[in-house]
C-alpha cells in the first residue's frame, strides 16, 4: 500500500495517546512519520502487520481498529494537501460516493502502482444509500464501514453503516442517515 495509509495510522495513533504515552507507543511499534513517504509503495503485509500491532497495543480487536482508522482516514485526508481534491469530488454524500472512482482514476494516473478500490452507488433514495465496494484486497470491510462513517461526518449527517452481504464480486453496504 502507498505510504499515505502508514502516515494516517501514525497520526491516528498519535491522536489516541497522550504526549507521555506516545513516545512509548512509537518505540513499541518502531514507527517514524518521516520514514513513511506518502508516494512510496510498502508491502501490504507490512501495513497489515502495523495495523495488527497497533490494535494489540491499544487493546482492541483488529476489526474495531480498522473501523476507527477508516473513519479517521477521511479526517486525515481533509487536513492535508488533499483537501482540495475531496472538496472537488462531491458536495453531498451521494455525489461524493458516485465520483469516488473518478477520483481514484486520477490517483492511479499519478501513482501507477496504486491498487485502488471501486465504489458503486447502487441505489440512492432519501436517507438511504446502497454502495457496492470492490477491491483486489480482502478483509478490509471494517475499514470501509469506518470510511463511510467518516463521509457521514464530513457531510454532517447522523446515521449508520452496515455491511449487508456479498453480492457477486462486491461487498454491499447500506448507509442510513437523517
Amino acid at each position, binding site marked *: 500500500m502507498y505510504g499515505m495509509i502508514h502516515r494516517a495510522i501514525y497520526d491516528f495513533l498519535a491522536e489516541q495517546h497522550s504526549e507521555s504515552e506516545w513516545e512509548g507507543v512509537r518505540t513499541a511499534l518502531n514507527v517514524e512519520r518521516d520514514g513513511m513517504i*506518502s*508516494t512510496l509503495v510498502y508491502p501490504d503485509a507490512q501495513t497489515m502487520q502495523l495495523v495488527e500491532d497497533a490494535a494489540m497495543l491499544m487493546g482492541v480487536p483488529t476489526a474495531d481498529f480498522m473501523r476507527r482508522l477508516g473513519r479517521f482516514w477521511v479526517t486525515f485526508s481533509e487536513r492535508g*494537501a*488533499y483537501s482540495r481534491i475531496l*472538496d472537488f*469530488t462531491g458536495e453531498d454524500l451521494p455525489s461524493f460516493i458516485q465520483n469516488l472512482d*473518478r477520483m481514484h482514476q*486520477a490517483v492511479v*494516473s*499519478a501513482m501507477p502502482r496504486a491498487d485502488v478500490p471501486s465504489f458503486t452507488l447502487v441505489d440512492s433514495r432519501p436517507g438511504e444509500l446502497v454502495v457496492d465496494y470492490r477491491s483486489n484486497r480482502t478483509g478490509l470491510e471494517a475499514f470501509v464501514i469506518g470510511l463511510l462513517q467518516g463521509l457521514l461526518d464530513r457531510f454532517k449527517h447522523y446515521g449508520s453503516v452496515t455491511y449487508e452481504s456479498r453480492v457477486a464480486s462486491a461487498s454491499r453496504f447500506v448507509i442510513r442517515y437523517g
Partner: protein
Amino acid sequence: MTQVSLDENNLFMLHPTAIRIDGAMDVCAFGPLAQRYAPAMRRGSVLSDFFEIAPELNESSASTFATEQTALVLRSKSRSIHLVGTLFATEGGYLLVTKPTIADAANPVNGFQIADFAADDPLVQCLFQIVLLQGLRDEAEKNAQDLKLAWEEVGDILVQLRRITGFISHEFHNLLSIIQLNCDRVISSERTSPEVARAVGMIKETAIRGGRVSQWLRAISGDADLWQREPLDDFLRANLSLLRTLGGPNVTLSARLMAGSACLKAPVCDLLNCLVSLIGTIAKGCRGSVHADISTTLAEATASELAMAELRISIAAEQWGDGSELLISRHQSFLGNEPGRSSIAEFAEAAGGTAHYEPAEQTRGVFTLRIPCAAENVGRVEAPQANKASDLAPHRHLVIVEDEPAALEALVELLEFEGFPITACSNAEEALAAISAVPDAVLITDVVLPTMDGLTLALEATRRYPQVRVVVMSGHVPNHEHYNPRWAFMQKPLSVDELIAEIARADT
C-alpha cells in the same frame, strides 16, 4: 442535409450547459447545469444580470457573433467560475452553448464543483489529476521543510558532539604526551633499574596505543586529520561514477585532475554534497544534453599563503530549461539564488577559500573554487637520520613553550640531557621575552596556550625576529589561518629522538 428537430428537454439533455435567449437578450430557457452557474436565473431574466460577457453581447452584436461563431467568455456574477460559449441563431432568438473553463492556472478548480461538469466532460479527469498533483507537491514541500528542520536539529547536535569529542581527544592526547615524555625521562635516567625501565617501557607503549585511540576520536570529531588522508583528485576520481549516475543520460561528465597529492583542508564529504547538488540541479534544470567538466590544479604555497587547490566545474548546456526557474524557486532555501552556487560558496567559505560563478555564454558557465589544501606530507615527520644533539654543532638555544608543567619539566630535562641550552616558558609572553634575548633561538611551542596561542606566538616571533626557527607541537596537524606550512611540525605524543631530528631540520 438531414435536419434533426429537438424538443427543449432533448436539447438540454444534450447540452445541459446551454441557455436559450431571445433577440432582446432575455433568457427563455436553460439546461440544468446552466442554472448551477447562475442559481437565481429564471425564464425572462436579463442574461447580462447574471454573466459578464466578453466581447459584449447585445442585440446588435449577437447576429454577428452567431454568424462568425465568435468565442465568448462568460464570468458568473454569483459564483467564481468562468465559461466559454458559442452563439447559434435559432428561430426567434439564439442558443448560447457554454462549457466550464479554467480561469486560474494556479488553482484550476477554484470555484468549481464536479457537479458543474457534464458527466462525459474530459476536463473533469484533468482537474482531478491537477489537484492531486498539487496535493502531492504541497506534501513534498512540507516534507522537505520538515526534513530541513530535522537536519538542522541533528546538525546542531552533531556540531556539539564534534566539539566535545574534539576537546576530549585533545585533552586525552596531552595527558598521553606527558606520560610518554616522563616515561622517556625515567627510562633515560642512569638511576633507573632495568626492571623499572621495562615496566615504564610498558607504560609508554600503552600511552602510544592510547595516542592512536585519541587520533580516532579526533577523526570522529570531524577535525583536521580527515582531510589529510585522501587526496582531492583521488576522492573526485572515486566519486565520478556516482556523479555520472546522478546526472543521468543527458549529462556527460569529464575530469582533468592535476592537483597531485593535495588534500583539502575541509571535510571532503561536504564537497561531495555540493557537487551532488550542483549536478542534480543541472540535470533537472537543463534541456537537451549538458556537459560538465571538472578540473583541478594546485597553486604552490608561498611563505605567506597556504597552498590552494583550484577546482573548476565548467558547464555547457544545449539549453537551460524552464524547469530551472521552478526548481530554484522551490528549493531556494537549499540551493540559493543560482543552481548550486550557494552551497558551493558556503562550502568554499567554510573551508577558508573562495568560490565564484562566471557565465561564459547564455548556456555556459564556470564555477571556480579555491580551497586551502596541503600536500600529503605536510606536517608529517620523516624518519630521523642524524638525530643526536651531539651531531649538531653548535647547539641552537631552545625556547620551549608548554603550559603543562609535567610535560615542560620532562621535555626540558630530556633535551638538556642532549646538551641543548634551554629557556622554559609556560606562556607566550615569557617566550617572546626569552627570544628577545636570543633572537636566533629555535622556538618549540605547543598550540593551545593561555592568553596567546602557539601559532600566533610563532607568527609574532618570526615577524619580530626573522632568524627564529619554529617547531610546532600539537596533537593534530594545525588547520589554522596562522599556521605556516614551512614551520616544522611535531605530532604529540612526542618522541624525543624525532624532536631532535626536527630541531636539526629547523636549524638548517
